[in-house]
């Protein structure tokens, strides 16, 4: 069991006040012994359905942009909601989405750890241009504005992609993004600026740039 918790240790230390991850850890630790845990009373379960469940679409959208795979996104969201439910006692108000996104993000991290993918190093990425930037052919193949914008977003390296998605698509505040991603606000701001810069390079704004 301890081995399964380890991937989250750095996250926790980076974000001592992050209720989402702390709660998630608790849910995680008890995941295999769910039977021992006293279930939420019916009132709390209803509150979860009322407060958290309506954010399914945005949780899925966030997961989808994180992993860029439709069926994996479903798995991640399903996993995240189960963990959110188990850890719901730890939800202390605030925007439920920031709390939920932190859990979705953790589910994705767990998956990435298990795939033994090297962690994306934000600082290293800063030195490079998007490695998966769309080729002109890929842009032609994609149809329509929505697909173009999604494709461009998905070409961004992960830290920039998640920050920009949380800001532009989910309209989270800097503070909420910091809470969801476990990054300091200054980092959120610099990632946002860099993400927009990279995106403007692959998505020229017609009429404003020759």
């Amino acid at each position, binding site marked *: 069991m301890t081995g399964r918790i380890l991937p989250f240790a750095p996250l926790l230390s980076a974000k001592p006040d992050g209720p989402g991850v702390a709660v998630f850890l608790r849910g995680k630790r008890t995941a295999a012994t*769910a039977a021992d845990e006293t279930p939420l009373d019916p009132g709390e379960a209803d509150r*979860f359905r009322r407060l958290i469940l309506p954010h*399914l679409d945005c949780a*899925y959208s966030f997961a989808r942009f994180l992993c860029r795979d439709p069926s994996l996104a479903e798995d991640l969201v399903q996993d995240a909601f*189960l963990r959110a439910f188990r850890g719901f006692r730890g939800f202390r108000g605030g925007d439920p989405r920031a709390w939920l996104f932190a859990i979705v993000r953790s589910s994705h991290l767990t998956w990435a750890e298990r795939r033994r993918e090297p962690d994306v190093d934000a600082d290293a990425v800063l030195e490079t241009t998007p490695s998966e930037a769309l080729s002109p052919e890929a842009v032609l193949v994609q149809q329509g504005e929505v697909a173009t914008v999604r494709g461009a977003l998905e070409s961004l390296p992960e830290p920039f992609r998640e920050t920009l998605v949380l800001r532009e*698509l989910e309209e989270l*505040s800097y503070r909420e993004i910091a809470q969801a991603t476990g990054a300091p606000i200054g980092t959120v701001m610099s990632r946002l600026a860099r993400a927009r810069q990279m995106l403007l390079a692959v998505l020229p*704004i017609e009429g404003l740039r020759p």
Partner: protein
Amino acid sequence: MTACPDKEALLHGLLDGELDAANAQACEAHLKTCPGCAQALGELQALSARLSAPGVAYRAPPGLRARIEGLIDAEARPPPRRLRAAAPWAFSGGFAALAASLAVVMVQANVSALEDQLVASHVRSTLASHLVDVETSDRHVVKPWFNGRIDFAPPVIELADAGYPLAGGRLDYLDDRVVAALVYRRNRHVINLFVWPSKPGPALPPGPALRSGYSVAHWRNHGLEFWAVSDIDAGDLEAFRRAFVARAPT
């Protein structure tokens, strides 16, 4: 034409509504006199509009909400009170027989409740377009897929040549725990094989049994419980059981 380097952070802050009143005013005043910054802000606003346009964010696929609601309902349900569930059966058997039969009856009641859950899970899996989480006939894909998702390793056995091709795997929730479900096909029928670690306790009655028109087969192997559920007939499911057991790793 580019933005003033020292104003870049302010432009993003202004765009995102994160500046306090004083900074916002100062920034707006600067924009009036600096065409470079004004153009940069215009680009950022246009980009922002494209990103937040309807349709860019994904929507959850139709079945996902129902599945998550099902998971949550299962979690929210209080764990079955086993003794109480068994009581009506026990008393109907007569007082004298009660003492002798109580243990057996309780086991049977548990098994009966479990079989109801198994059949319900099987039916749900065939109705809710959630037959498999990982869809493949390759056991080398299914086996690692379970790895890390559950705390045990179900044996994934290829049975295509015996007439039961592997369709994939799925996680399910049964008997208060997450279990592995291996999905096999038999002609046009589906066999759900649920697997989870055995709890210490009396051995459950051997299969095959018939429940609400579904065949149910049960066996134990290497500390794991196996429950196969299908709408194929009981004899065919027993053949499946034999084929599976015969190839199970020893």
